């Protein structure tokens, strides 16, 4: 192919410019980032966008189908649920719960997992053995069952669900950060920092973390997606977010008895969950491809 090079392409581009160029042509990354940005916007602007109060019940207007059914009405574009609450408004407010849980769980588990993983990778030896052992034990415990049990015993609330998931889901952070840290531990700039007498904390923050950042971001997105799915499952089983909060998983659970005649009650919140998780996963996969093109297959 006889391509005419633009003048700025004749000069060797910087790694950052290369990365931006790869990002602009990565369809999955763009689609994921776009959909996620849209959902974040919807969550932030929920009071402006929602046509009705998501909690307001109207028993005279129960189970109105969405607009694409013959009997749908523009007053309730996505219909109403079995208590006559506007479904569109509930789906819009539901995005706040999913994003909040996904984000905070990711922060908590990321902090725990990264600390353990970087310590294991940097110090090696006994520290590494201990962390690897902890990860093995953690992986043996079934997350959903343990989370369900703790939430049931302590009493379910939004923040308890977040805490429990945050303290259960650090394993992948630890595993990935451990191997990423091991790869950079012996590199020249780390050895140089050690040679001039930098403190361990300074080496970890100044040399290690910036160089494992891309791996960290990738795990963080995948873990956020998985936390959102877990919350939905917990809420679906009745032991996550409690009514009347509009969690998407809880909405599916409440609508289960009506799904045979009013299928939209489960397809809409489920579709919203699928879109959000898919967007986050695509973003994560895209970031990996763009940041480490050689590791792609």
């Amino acid at each position, binding site marked *: 192919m006889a391509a005419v090079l633009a003048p700025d392409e004749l000069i060797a581009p910087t790694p950052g410019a290369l990365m931006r160029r790869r990002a602009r042509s990565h369809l999955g990354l763009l689609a994921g980032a776009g959909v996620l940005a849209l959902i974040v916007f919807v969550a932030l602007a929920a009071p402006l966008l929602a046509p009705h109060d998501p909690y307001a019940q109207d028993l005279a207007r129960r189970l109105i189908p969405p607009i694409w059914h013959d009997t749908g009405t523009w007053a309730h574009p996505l219909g109403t649920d079995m208590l006559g609450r506007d479904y569109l408004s509930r789906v819009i407010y539901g995005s706040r719960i999913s994003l909040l849980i996904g984000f905070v769980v990711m922060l908590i588990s990321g902090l725990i997992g990264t600390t353990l993983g970087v310590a294991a990778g940097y110090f090696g030896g006994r520290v590494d053995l201990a962390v690897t*052992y902890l990860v*093995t*034990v953690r*992986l*043996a*415990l*079934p*997350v*959903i*069952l*343990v989370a*369900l*049990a*703790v939430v*049931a*015993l*302590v009493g379910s609330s939004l923040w308890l669900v977040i805490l429990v998931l945050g303290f259960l889901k650090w394993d992948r952070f630890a595993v990935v950060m451990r191997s990423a840290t091991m790869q950079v531990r012996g590199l020249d700039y780390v050895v140089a920092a050690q040679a001039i007498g930098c403190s361990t904390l300074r080496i970890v923050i100044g040399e290690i973390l910036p160089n494992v950042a891309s791996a960290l971001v990738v795990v963080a997105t995948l873990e956020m*997606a998985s936390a959102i*799915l877990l919350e*939905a*499952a917990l809420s*679906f*089983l*009745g*032991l996550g977010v409690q009514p009347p909060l509009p969690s998407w*998983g809880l909405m*599916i659970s409440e609508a*289960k008895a009506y*799904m*045979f005649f009013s*299928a939209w009650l*489960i*397809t809409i919140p*489920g579709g919203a*969950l*699928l879109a959000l*998780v*898919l967007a986050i*996963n*695509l973003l994560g*996969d895209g970031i990996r491809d763009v940041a480490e093109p050689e590791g792609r*297959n």
Partner: protein
Amino acid sequence: MLAYTFKRAVLALLVALTVSLACFLLVHLSTDVAVAMAGEGARAEDIEFIRKQYGFDRPLAVQYADWLGRALRGEFGDSLYFRTPVARIVWERLPVTLTLGAWAILLALALSIPLGVVAAMRPNSWLDRFTLTLAVIGQAMPSFWFALLLMLLFGVTLGWLPISGSDTQAHFVLPAVALAYYAAPAIMRLTRSGMLEVLGSDYIRTARAKGLRPAAVLFKHALRNAVVPVVALAAVQLGFMLGGSVVIETVFALNGLGYLAWEAILHNDFPVVQAIVLLIALFYIVLTFLADLANGWLDPRIRIV
């Protein structure tokens, strides 16, 4: 191999012991067991009586040793809700979950290994892109929602399969599909990337150069090596599936361990919950131990580390 097996076995035992401690603490740190046992509206004297009677006033370490000792003999006390010995009720429900798990992992392997191999043979073909898309969507799909959609389509609209209960083998089809779909994407991606790596290696080029039939190269030389990590992942996924069965079994009212766990959790029946969490964790430990052995047997390099 013997030394490797021994090391892995010791590790598995240690992990099992730690997991049992976690199961015990999980309950005793989350709640006051005497209050949970007495039930709602119990008088303070009753709670005190239960605390003395069951020895909940002893130090936690003593209680743990006592609980572990009895657990090793298969005694988990009586269920608070079902009013029968925990061991018996768990034993009754176990076959259902094992049947479900076996179907699901077989289905996942039968689907994802051929797809992974085909995708690796023609990287970036439409088939490769299609299976990859399927995997990406599969990983983003809430499993309980997928289960409900299966129910709607095959149970209600088409009317082919039963949607609730565990009386016949037909009752296992939809739950097994739902559970398999949860594990298949990871297995498929690993098969694909393993095959891609192997197919690019020198000995495959040699095998091709000396004129072996493509099928022989693919199955005898390539797949055999690519399958090593897939075996390990399948075992691990089966362990995760047993844990995830709580969601799928509850959706389909399939009378297995997962459904039992959910019922027990709803009724604060902590002896049953402890037993199930411990049992599923032990399954996982045994499965990963076997996967380690299989890997060590297939690939001697692993044994050294």
